[in-house]
């Protein structure tokens, strides 16, 4: 009973897929995330903006359960995952095996694709479904093929990563993540290593996924995507969330000076 009380998260909106509260993260005593509160709602496309070094990757890694936290709370679909050094509340952490299970429900796509180079595209996509979800190999392969077709790589299923362009590799990486049918998809500057042509291909795929109603958190410098596909923009600076709102309100009427400065800089650069 006591355990249940601890792991229950109070006062979370019913539709929250993932939330962090009072999240602080320090590396060697330097705060990188400073008292961040964020709740990701079901079906939304949350775009994280902010200058280099503002803590976007770190926040995303915390959401992906790839990074320990210094203090604060993380929860996933109403279930508490970590709580550390919160006033008047006991510390809590799920077990390693529970965490591993949760990680299958949270997909992350990296800037550098990180495909498994010894496997073909279809093997990359089918690997985790077969070994983690214990899906029958034929079923997993058929689904992998479907997903690769969906990202426009139906003719490249048997290619290894060194035989694919950057944009193609990134689309395989997206398919690999989608194969786990995650409840939440995280993207960390997935197009910043790509040229404009390949960027467009990848963004088109991401837009399709968003239109399917997938819950996404996207770190990107693509303002077009933020404006037209994003449903909410969160602006970060120095490890804090300084402003958030709909794309229209944030782009047309930014309140914080740092947001204005950032938007000025990127919009003029583009």
């Amino acid at each position, binding site marked *: 009973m006591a355990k249940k009380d601890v792991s229950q998260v109070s006062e979370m909106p019913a539709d929250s897929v993932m939330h962090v509260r009072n999240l602080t993260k320090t590396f060697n005593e330097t705060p990188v995330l400073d008292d961040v509160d964020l709740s990701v709602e079901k079906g939304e496309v949350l775009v994280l903006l902010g200058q280099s070094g503002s803590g976007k990757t770190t926040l995303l890694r915390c959401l*992906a359960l*790839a990074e320990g936290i210094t203090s604060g709370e993380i929860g996933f679909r109403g279930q508490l995952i970590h709580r550390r050094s919160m006033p008047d509340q006991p510390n809590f952490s799920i077990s390693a095996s529970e965490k*591993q*299970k949760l*990680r*299958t429900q*949270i*997909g*992350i796509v*990296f800037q*550098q694709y*990180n*495909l*498994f*180079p*010894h496997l073909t595209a279809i093997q990359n996509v089918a*690997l*985790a479904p077969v*070994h*983690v979800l214990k899906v029958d190999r034929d079923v997993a392969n058929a689904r992998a093929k479907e997903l690769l077709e969906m990202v426009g790589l139906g003719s490249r299923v048997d290619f*290894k990563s*060194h035989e694919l362009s950057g944009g193609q590799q990134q689309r395989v990486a997206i398919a*690999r*993540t989608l194969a*786990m049918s995650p409840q939440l998809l995280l993207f960390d500057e997935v197009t910043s290593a790509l040229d404009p042509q390949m960027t467009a291909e990848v963004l088109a795929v991401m837009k399709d996924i968003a239109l399917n109603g997938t819950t996404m958190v996207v770190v990107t410098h693509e303002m077009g995507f933020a404006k037209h596909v994003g449903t909410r923009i969160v602006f970060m600076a120095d490890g804090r969330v300084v402003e958030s709102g709909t794309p229209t309100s944030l782009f047309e009427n930014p309140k914080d000076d740092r947001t204005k400065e950032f938007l000025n800089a990127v919009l003029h650069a583009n």
Partner: protein
Amino acid sequence: MEQAIEYLPQLLQGLVLTVVVTLIVMVLATALGLLVAIGRMSRFALVRGPLTAYVEFVRGTPTLVHLYYVFYVLPLVGVTLPAVLAGVIGLTIGYAAYLSEVFRAAIGSVPLVQQEAADSLGLSKVQSFRLVIMPQATRVALPPTVNYLLSLFKDTSLLSIITIQELMFTGLLIGSMTFQYFIIFTEVAILYFCVCYPWAWLARRLEKRLSPDGGQSTSKRLAKTRRQLFMSDGMAGQK
């Protein structure tokens, strides 16, 4: 020539034992080397410490000393082993240590982000090691491993000193009776070479097939750099 043919069956017998011992040590040393490599990545210092000490100590001592220890020193404390077994153990001690270093370096050469990608897909540590890290590490480890096995094969000649009738011992034995050292050791050398050379060739083939770009062998890459070097040399010479 007649003599050469006369000695051949005996020498071939010695060669068979040489190959058998090599294969046994190869299997044992590879398995142990892998365990040591994995053990040295343990988070428990109590596991890491002794293994590190073992590897460092063995790497700093000659194989012959390992052999003498097993063959001459262990009997003093009551452990007397048949010579062949002592030889196998003596060689395994060293080669397990060398190979563990090869495997450790190979595992370390797989980028950390590969582990992260595997973690993010929910693979367990064992699964990601087996399915993601090992296959990539194997490619890196294979060429040096095959080279070590080549020198293992040659090192079995040391076993002649502890009276094991492998190829070298057989050669010495016939030599001491016939004094035909020229013929005998020429034959011995040719026999060693006949095994080593195809092995080295196989190693190159394997390396080529397993390289991630599916492509260039070391010799091809070398040839390319060499050509470039010569080209600049040539131009310098023309001046």
